[in-house]
Protein backbone atom coordinates (compact mmCIF):
# COMPACT_ATOMS: atom_id res chain seq x y z
CA UNK A 1 0.00 0.00 0.00
CA UNK A 2 0.91 3.65 -0.30
CA UNK A 3 1.29 6.48 2.11
CA UNK A 4 0.47 9.89 0.75
CA UNK A 5 1.57 13.11 2.45
CA UNK A 6 -0.12 16.32 1.35
CA UNK A 7 0.83 19.70 2.75
CA UNK A 8 -1.47 22.55 1.71
CA UNK A 9 -2.78 25.77 3.17
CA UNK A 10 -5.65 25.27 5.63
CA UNK A 11 -7.69 27.41 3.28
CA UNK A 12 -7.53 24.73 0.60
CA UNK A 13 -8.15 21.87 3.01
CA UNK A 14 -11.82 21.63 2.12
CA UNK A 15 -11.08 21.22 -1.58
CA UNK A 16 -8.47 18.58 -0.85
CA UNK A 17 -10.87 16.65 1.36
CA UNK A 18 -13.51 16.80 -1.35
CA UNK A 19 -10.94 15.36 -3.75
CA UNK A 20 -10.14 12.58 -1.28
CA UNK A 21 -13.80 11.67 -0.99
CA UNK A 22 -14.17 11.71 -4.76
CA UNK A 23 -11.14 9.44 -5.19
CA UNK A 24 -12.67 7.00 -2.70
CA UNK A 25 -9.81 7.26 -0.25
CA UNK A 26 -10.48 4.72 2.53
CA UNK A 27 -9.70 7.39 5.13
CA UNK A 28 -7.36 10.23 5.95
CA UNK A 29 -5.91 12.14 8.87
CA UNK A 30 -5.39 15.88 9.15
CA UNK A 31 -2.96 17.86 11.27
CA UNK A 32 -3.55 21.59 11.34
CA UNK A 33 -1.40 24.52 12.48
CA UNK A 34 1.54 23.29 10.39
CA UNK A 35 4.02 25.99 9.45
CA UNK A 36 6.76 25.81 6.88
CA UNK A 37 8.57 27.18 3.92
CA UNK A 38 8.43 26.36 0.24
CA UNK A 39 10.72 27.56 -2.55
CA UNK A 40 9.04 30.99 -2.64
CA UNK A 41 6.76 31.56 0.29
CA UNK A 42 6.80 30.85 3.98
CA UNK A 43 3.96 30.27 6.41
CA UNK A 44 4.52 31.24 10.02
CA UNK A 45 2.52 30.70 13.15
CA UNK A 46 2.47 34.45 13.55
CA UNK A 47 -0.35 34.82 11.03
CA UNK A 48 -2.41 32.01 12.49
CA UNK A 49 -4.76 34.55 14.08
CA UNK A 50 -5.67 36.03 10.74
CA UNK A 51 -7.87 34.41 8.15
CA UNK A 52 -4.66 33.51 6.37
CA UNK A 53 -4.14 30.53 8.60
CA UNK A 54 -1.34 28.00 8.58
CA UNK A 55 -0.86 24.81 6.59
CA UNK A 56 -2.53 21.46 7.06
CA UNK A 57 -0.77 18.12 6.75
CA UNK A 58 -2.97 15.37 5.31
CA UNK A 59 -1.91 11.74 5.58
CA UNK A 60 -3.63 9.07 3.48
CA UNK A 61 -2.93 5.36 3.55
CA UNK A 62 -4.39 3.89 0.39
CA UNK A 63 -3.87 1.69 -2.68
CA UNK A 64 -2.09 2.86 -5.81
CA UNK A 65 -5.33 3.42 -7.73
CA UNK A 66 -6.47 6.01 -5.23
CA UNK A 67 -3.15 7.77 -5.64
CA UNK A 68 -3.66 7.80 -9.38
CA UNK A 69 -7.10 9.32 -9.09
CA UNK A 70 -5.88 11.85 -6.55
CA UNK A 71 -3.04 12.95 -8.76
CA UNK A 72 -5.54 14.31 -11.27
CA UNK A 73 -7.79 15.88 -8.68
CA UNK A 74 -5.21 17.36 -6.32
CA UNK A 75 -2.38 18.46 -8.58
CA UNK A 76 -4.35 21.37 -10.08
CA UNK A 77 -4.98 22.66 -6.54
CA UNK A 78 -1.29 22.37 -5.69
CA UNK A 79 -0.26 24.04 -8.93
CA UNK A 80 -2.58 26.99 -8.40
CA UNK A 81 -2.28 27.54 -4.66
CA UNK A 82 1.02 25.87 -3.77
CA UNK A 83 1.65 22.93 -1.50
CA UNK A 84 3.40 19.58 -1.89
CA UNK A 85 2.37 15.93 -2.24
CA UNK A 86 4.66 12.93 -1.81
CA UNK A 87 4.06 9.20 -2.04
CA UNK A 88 5.92 6.46 -0.18
CA UNK A 89 5.54 2.75 0.50
CA UNK A 90 3.79 1.56 3.67
CA UNK A 91 2.23 -1.65 4.92
CA UNK A 92 -0.48 -2.31 7.46
CA UNK A 93 1.04 -3.45 10.74
Amino acid at each position, binding site marked *: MKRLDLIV*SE*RELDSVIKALDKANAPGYSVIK*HVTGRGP*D*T*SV*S*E*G*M*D*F*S*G*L*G*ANAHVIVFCEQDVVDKLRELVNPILD*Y*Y*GGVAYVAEAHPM
Partner: protein
Amino acid sequence: MDTSLILQNLLTPPVLFFFLGAIAVFVRSDLEIPAPLPKLFSLYLLLAIGFKGGVELGHYGLGGQVIPTVTAAIVMSLVVPLVCFAVLRLKLDVFNSAAIAAAYGSISAVTFITAESFLESQSIAYDGFMVAALALMESPAIIIGLILVNLSARQKRPDAKGMNWGAVLHEAMLNGSVYLLIGSLLIGFIGASHSPAGIEKMDPFTNKLFYGALCFFLLDMGIVAAQRVKDLQKAGWFLIFFSVLMPLLNGVVGGFIAKGLGLGPGNALLFIVLCASASYIAVPAAMRMTVPEANPSYYISTALGLTFPFNIIIGIPLYMGLVNKLIPAVS
Protein backbone atom coordinates in the same frame (compact mmCIF):
# COMPACT_ATOMS: atom_id res chain seq x y z
CA MET B 1 1.42 70.24 20.26
CA ASP B 2 1.59 67.21 17.98
CA THR B 3 4.76 66.12 19.72
CA SER B 4 3.02 66.20 23.07
CA LEU B 5 0.11 64.18 21.64
CA ILE B 6 2.59 61.67 20.22
CA LEU B 7 4.25 61.36 23.60
CA GLN B 8 0.92 61.01 25.39
CA ASN B 9 -0.02 58.24 22.97
CA LEU B 10 3.38 56.56 23.25
CA LEU B 11 3.13 56.18 27.00
CA THR B 12 -0.28 54.49 27.16
CA PRO B 13 -0.32 50.77 28.01
CA PRO B 14 -1.56 49.55 24.58
CA VAL B 15 1.27 51.23 22.70
CA LEU B 16 3.82 50.22 25.32
CA PHE B 17 2.74 46.58 25.11
CA PHE B 18 3.06 46.79 21.34
CA PHE B 19 6.63 47.98 21.84
CA LEU B 20 7.28 45.25 24.38
CA GLY B 21 6.32 42.64 21.78
CA ALA B 22 8.35 44.27 19.02
CA ILE B 23 11.43 44.64 21.19
CA ALA B 24 11.17 40.98 22.17
CA VAL B 25 11.81 40.12 18.53
CA PHE B 26 14.69 42.54 18.14
CA VAL B 27 16.51 41.34 21.27
CA ARG B 28 15.65 37.73 20.31
CA SER B 29 13.75 36.93 23.51
CA ASP B 30 11.86 33.65 23.22
CA LEU B 31 8.65 35.33 24.33
CA GLU B 32 5.85 33.98 22.17
CA ILE B 33 2.09 33.74 22.32
CA PRO B 34 1.42 30.38 20.76
CA ALA B 35 -1.41 29.77 18.29
CA PRO B 36 -4.35 29.77 18.67
CA LEU B 37 -4.24 32.21 21.60
CA PRO B 38 -3.88 35.29 19.37
CA LYS B 39 -6.95 34.06 17.49
CA LEU B 40 -8.87 34.06 20.77
CA PHE B 41 -8.04 37.72 21.28
CA SER B 42 -8.74 38.69 17.70
CA LEU B 43 -12.14 36.94 17.76
CA TYR B 44 -12.88 38.52 21.12
CA LEU B 45 -11.98 42.03 19.95
CA LEU B 46 -14.13 41.73 16.83
CA LEU B 47 -17.06 40.37 18.80
CA ALA B 48 -16.77 43.01 21.49
CA ILE B 49 -16.28 45.98 19.20
CA GLY B 50 -19.13 44.87 16.97
CA PHE B 51 -21.44 44.28 19.90
CA LYS B 52 -20.66 47.58 21.62
CA GLY B 53 -21.02 49.47 18.35
CA GLY B 54 -24.33 47.75 17.67
CA VAL B 55 -25.70 48.65 21.07
CA GLU B 56 -24.77 52.28 20.63
CA LEU B 57 -26.13 52.30 17.11
CA GLY B 58 -29.35 50.86 18.54
CA HIS B 59 -29.61 53.69 21.02
CA TYR B 60 -28.58 56.31 18.49
CA GLY B 61 -30.75 55.11 15.63
CA LEU B 62 -30.03 55.35 11.92
CA GLY B 63 -30.74 59.06 11.67
CA GLY B 64 -28.38 62.01 12.08
CA GLN B 65 -24.92 61.62 10.60
CA VAL B 66 -25.08 57.83 10.37
CA ILE B 67 -26.13 57.33 6.75
CA PRO B 68 -23.92 60.09 5.27
CA THR B 69 -20.89 58.95 7.27
CA VAL B 70 -21.27 55.30 6.41
CA THR B 71 -21.83 56.15 2.76
CA ALA B 72 -18.71 58.31 2.68
CA ALA B 73 -16.77 55.49 4.32
CA ILE B 74 -17.87 53.01 1.68
CA VAL B 75 -16.98 55.45 -1.08
CA MET B 76 -13.52 55.86 0.43
CA SER B 77 -13.08 52.08 0.51
CA LEU B 78 -13.78 52.08 -3.24
CA VAL B 79 -11.68 55.08 -4.17
CA VAL B 80 -8.59 54.44 -2.05
CA PRO B 81 -7.74 51.13 -3.77
CA LEU B 82 -7.99 52.77 -7.19
CA VAL B 83 -5.52 55.48 -6.19
CA CYS B 84 -3.23 52.96 -4.55
CA PHE B 85 -3.34 50.72 -7.59
CA ALA B 86 -2.32 53.55 -9.87
CA VAL B 87 0.63 54.38 -7.61
CA LEU B 88 1.70 50.78 -7.10
CA ARG B 89 1.64 49.95 -10.81
CA LEU B 90 4.61 52.30 -11.21
CA LYS B 91 6.79 49.56 -9.79
CA LEU B 92 4.79 46.37 -9.27
CA ASP B 93 2.88 43.92 -11.44
CA VAL B 94 -0.90 43.79 -11.64
CA PHE B 95 -1.39 41.03 -9.08
CA ASN B 96 0.71 42.52 -6.31
CA SER B 97 -0.59 46.00 -7.00
CA ALA B 98 -4.21 44.91 -6.77
CA ALA B 99 -3.67 42.91 -3.60
CA ILE B 100 -1.87 45.72 -1.79
CA ALA B 101 -4.42 48.24 -3.05
CA ALA B 102 -7.25 46.17 -1.62
CA ALA B 103 -5.50 46.02 1.76
CA TYR B 104 -5.21 49.82 1.92
CA GLY B 105 -8.80 50.36 0.87
CA SER B 106 -9.94 48.11 3.66
CA ILE B 107 -9.43 48.78 7.36
CA SER B 108 -7.62 47.54 10.44
CA ALA B 109 -9.98 46.93 13.36
CA VAL B 110 -7.15 46.98 15.89
CA THR B 111 -5.96 50.38 14.69
CA PHE B 112 -9.54 51.61 15.04
CA ILE B 113 -9.80 50.20 18.57
CA THR B 114 -6.49 51.76 19.55
CA ALA B 115 -7.75 55.09 18.24
CA GLU B 116 -10.90 54.70 20.33
CA SER B 117 -8.87 54.12 23.46
CA PHE B 118 -6.68 57.09 22.57
CA LEU B 119 -9.83 59.22 22.38
CA GLU B 120 -10.96 57.90 25.75
CA SER B 121 -7.62 58.70 27.35
CA GLN B 122 -8.05 62.23 25.95
CA SER B 123 -11.69 62.34 27.12
CA ILE B 124 -12.92 63.09 23.60
CA ALA B 125 -16.38 61.74 22.74
CA TYR B 126 -17.11 59.59 19.70
CA ASP B 127 -20.12 57.65 18.46
CA GLY B 128 -20.80 53.94 18.30
CA PHE B 129 -22.08 54.17 14.75
CA MET B 130 -18.52 54.57 13.52
CA VAL B 131 -18.23 50.81 14.01
CA ALA B 132 -20.84 50.39 11.29
CA ALA B 133 -18.56 52.32 8.96
CA LEU B 134 -15.71 50.04 10.02
CA ALA B 135 -17.73 46.93 9.30
CA LEU B 136 -18.89 48.10 5.89
CA MET B 137 -15.46 49.15 4.62
CA GLU B 138 -13.99 45.66 4.62
CA SER B 139 -15.77 44.05 1.69
CA PRO B 140 -15.90 46.74 -1.02
CA ALA B 141 -12.12 47.12 -1.11
CA ILE B 142 -11.73 43.37 -1.61
CA ILE B 143 -14.14 43.44 -4.53
CA ILE B 144 -12.43 46.43 -6.13
CA GLY B 145 -9.10 44.63 -5.80
CA LEU B 146 -10.44 41.65 -7.66
CA ILE B 147 -12.08 43.74 -10.35
CA LEU B 148 -8.74 45.42 -10.92
CA VAL B 149 -7.04 42.06 -11.33
CA ASN B 150 -9.68 40.93 -13.73
CA LEU B 151 -9.69 44.02 -15.88
CA SER B 152 -5.95 44.38 -16.13
CA ALA B 153 -4.85 40.78 -16.11
CA ARG B 154 -7.33 38.74 -18.06
CA GLN B 155 -4.62 37.61 -20.42
CA LYS B 156 -1.99 37.30 -17.77
CA ARG B 157 -3.69 34.65 -15.69
CA PRO B 158 -2.12 31.25 -16.30
CA ASP B 159 -5.26 29.20 -16.78
CA ALA B 160 -8.56 29.97 -18.38
CA LYS B 161 -10.47 29.55 -15.16
CA GLY B 162 -11.01 33.25 -14.91
CA MET B 163 -12.70 34.64 -11.89
CA ASN B 164 -15.37 32.81 -10.01
CA TRP B 165 -17.48 35.77 -8.96
CA GLY B 166 -19.57 33.75 -6.57
CA ALA B 167 -16.45 32.71 -4.70
CA VAL B 168 -15.12 36.26 -4.71
CA LEU B 169 -18.29 37.83 -3.32
CA HIS B 170 -18.52 35.02 -0.81
CA GLU B 171 -14.96 35.60 0.35
CA ALA B 172 -15.49 39.37 0.48
CA MET B 173 -18.70 39.32 2.48
CA LEU B 174 -18.48 36.14 4.52
CA ASN B 175 -14.91 35.69 5.58
CA GLY B 176 -14.78 35.00 9.30
CA SER B 177 -13.73 38.40 10.59
CA VAL B 178 -16.19 40.42 8.49
CA TYR B 179 -18.97 38.01 9.36
CA LEU B 180 -18.27 38.08 13.11
CA LEU B 181 -17.99 41.86 13.16
CA ILE B 182 -21.24 42.47 11.28
CA GLY B 183 -23.03 39.68 13.14
CA SER B 184 -22.04 41.05 16.54
CA LEU B 185 -23.06 44.51 15.41
CA LEU B 186 -26.51 43.22 14.52
CA ILE B 187 -26.82 41.33 17.81
CA GLY B 188 -25.90 44.45 19.75
CA PHE B 189 -28.34 46.46 17.66
CA ILE B 190 -31.20 44.01 18.27
CA GLY B 191 -30.29 43.60 21.93
CA ALA B 192 -30.29 47.37 22.50
CA SER B 193 -34.04 47.48 22.02
CA HIS B 194 -35.11 43.95 22.96
CA SER B 195 -32.82 42.73 25.70
CA PRO B 196 -31.62 45.56 27.95
CA ALA B 197 -30.87 43.06 30.74
CA GLY B 198 -28.74 41.01 28.36
CA ILE B 199 -26.87 44.08 27.19
CA GLU B 200 -26.06 45.00 30.75
CA LYS B 201 -24.82 41.52 31.58
CA MET B 202 -22.53 41.53 28.56
CA ASP B 203 -20.83 44.67 29.82
CA PRO B 204 -18.09 43.10 31.98
CA PHE B 205 -17.09 40.85 29.08
CA THR B 206 -17.33 43.18 26.10
CA ASN B 207 -16.53 46.44 27.84
CA LYS B 208 -14.62 46.16 31.10
CA LEU B 209 -12.25 43.50 29.87
CA PHE B 210 -11.69 45.16 26.54
CA TYR B 211 -8.75 47.42 27.30
CA GLY B 212 -6.68 44.69 28.92
CA ALA B 213 -7.40 42.24 26.14
CA LEU B 214 -6.38 44.89 23.63
CA CYS B 215 -3.05 45.29 25.44
CA PHE B 216 -2.48 41.54 25.42
CA PHE B 217 -3.28 41.33 21.71
CA LEU B 218 -1.04 44.30 20.92
CA LEU B 219 1.78 42.48 22.70
CA ASP B 220 1.33 39.73 20.13
CA MET B 221 0.88 42.20 17.27
CA GLY B 222 4.19 43.74 18.28
CA ILE B 223 5.86 40.36 17.93
CA VAL B 224 4.20 39.59 14.60
CA ALA B 225 4.78 43.04 13.12
CA ALA B 226 8.46 42.99 14.08
CA GLN B 227 8.87 39.57 12.47
CA ARG B 228 7.64 41.17 9.25
CA VAL B 229 10.23 43.90 9.20
CA LYS B 230 12.76 41.65 7.50
CA ASP B 231 10.30 41.01 4.66
CA LEU B 232 9.89 44.74 4.35
CA GLN B 233 13.57 45.20 3.70
CA LYS B 234 13.31 42.67 0.90
CA ALA B 235 10.28 44.50 -0.48
CA GLY B 236 12.43 47.54 -1.09
CA TRP B 237 12.25 51.31 -0.65
CA PHE B 238 9.31 51.90 -2.89
CA LEU B 239 6.99 49.84 -0.68
CA ILE B 240 8.49 51.27 2.50
CA PHE B 241 7.69 54.80 1.37
CA PHE B 242 4.29 53.69 0.18
CA SER B 243 3.45 52.17 3.60
CA VAL B 244 4.03 55.47 5.37
CA LEU B 245 3.02 58.07 2.80
CA MET B 246 -0.17 56.42 1.59
CA PRO B 247 -1.79 56.37 5.06
CA LEU B 248 -0.83 60.01 5.48
CA LEU B 249 -2.40 60.94 2.16
CA ASN B 250 -5.54 58.89 2.83
CA GLY B 251 -5.71 60.33 6.32
CA VAL B 252 -5.57 63.91 5.09
CA VAL B 253 -8.25 63.25 2.48
CA GLY B 254 -10.31 61.53 5.19
CA GLY B 255 -9.87 64.56 7.42
CA PHE B 256 -11.34 66.90 4.84
CA ILE B 257 -14.24 64.55 4.17
CA ALA B 258 -14.89 64.34 7.93
CA LYS B 259 -14.95 68.12 8.07
CA GLY B 260 -17.32 68.19 5.11
CA LEU B 261 -19.60 65.71 6.86
CA GLY B 262 -19.61 67.92 9.93
CA LEU B 263 -18.31 65.18 12.20
CA GLY B 264 -17.20 66.01 15.73
CA PRO B 265 -13.50 65.66 16.57
CA GLY B 266 -13.82 62.08 17.93
CA ASN B 267 -15.74 60.73 14.98
CA ALA B 268 -13.45 62.64 12.64
CA LEU B 269 -10.38 60.93 14.08
CA LEU B 270 -12.02 57.53 13.69
CA PHE B 271 -13.00 58.34 10.11
CA ILE B 272 -9.44 59.32 9.30
CA VAL B 273 -8.12 56.15 10.90
CA LEU B 274 -10.48 54.07 8.78
CA CYS B 275 -9.14 55.72 5.65
CA ALA B 276 -5.52 55.56 6.73
CA SER B 277 -5.35 52.01 8.04
CA ALA B 278 -4.80 48.89 5.98
CA SER B 279 -6.18 45.41 6.47
CA TYR B 280 -3.93 42.52 7.51
CA ILE B 281 -6.65 40.06 8.49
CA ALA B 282 -9.59 39.93 6.10
CA VAL B 283 -7.92 41.15 2.91
CA PRO B 284 -4.83 38.92 3.00
CA ALA B 285 -7.10 35.93 3.54
CA ALA B 286 -9.23 36.91 0.56
CA MET B 287 -6.23 37.72 -1.64
CA ARG B 288 -4.43 34.52 -0.74
CA MET B 289 -7.43 32.65 -2.11
CA THR B 290 -8.43 34.75 -5.08
CA VAL B 291 -5.12 36.23 -6.25
CA PRO B 292 -2.60 33.52 -5.43
CA GLU B 293 -0.25 35.12 -7.97
CA ALA B 294 0.44 37.97 -5.55
CA ASN B 295 3.22 37.52 -3.03
CA PRO B 296 1.68 37.51 0.46
CA SER B 297 4.87 38.83 2.02
CA TYR B 298 4.30 42.09 0.12
CA TYR B 299 0.76 42.83 1.22
CA ILE B 300 1.25 41.53 4.75
CA SER B 301 4.56 43.20 5.43
CA THR B 302 3.40 46.59 4.19
CA ALA B 303 0.04 46.58 6.00
CA LEU B 304 1.19 44.83 9.16
CA GLY B 305 4.93 45.44 9.33
CA LEU B 306 4.90 49.18 8.73
CA THR B 307 1.51 50.86 8.24
CA PHE B 308 0.04 49.31 11.36
CA PRO B 309 2.88 50.32 13.75
CA PHE B 310 3.10 53.71 12.07
CA ASN B 311 -0.60 54.38 12.64
CA ILE B 312 -0.61 53.02 16.19
CA ILE B 313 2.47 54.93 17.32
CA ILE B 314 2.64 58.15 15.32
CA GLY B 315 -0.34 58.24 13.02
CA ILE B 316 -3.14 58.48 15.57
CA PRO B 317 -1.76 61.51 17.44
CA LEU B 318 -0.75 63.09 14.12
CA TYR B 319 -4.28 62.68 12.76
CA MET B 320 -5.58 64.09 16.03
CA GLY B 321 -3.43 67.14 15.48
CA LEU B 322 -4.96 67.46 11.99
CA VAL B 323 -8.45 67.12 13.45
CA ASN B 324 -7.67 69.81 16.00
CA LYS B 325 -6.66 72.12 13.17
CA LEU B 326 -9.56 71.31 10.87
CA ILE B 327 -12.39 70.92 13.32
CA PRO B 328 -12.66 73.30 16.22
CA ALA B 329 -13.77 71.35 19.29
CA VAL B 330 -17.13 72.36 20.70
CA SER B 331 -16.39 73.21 24.28
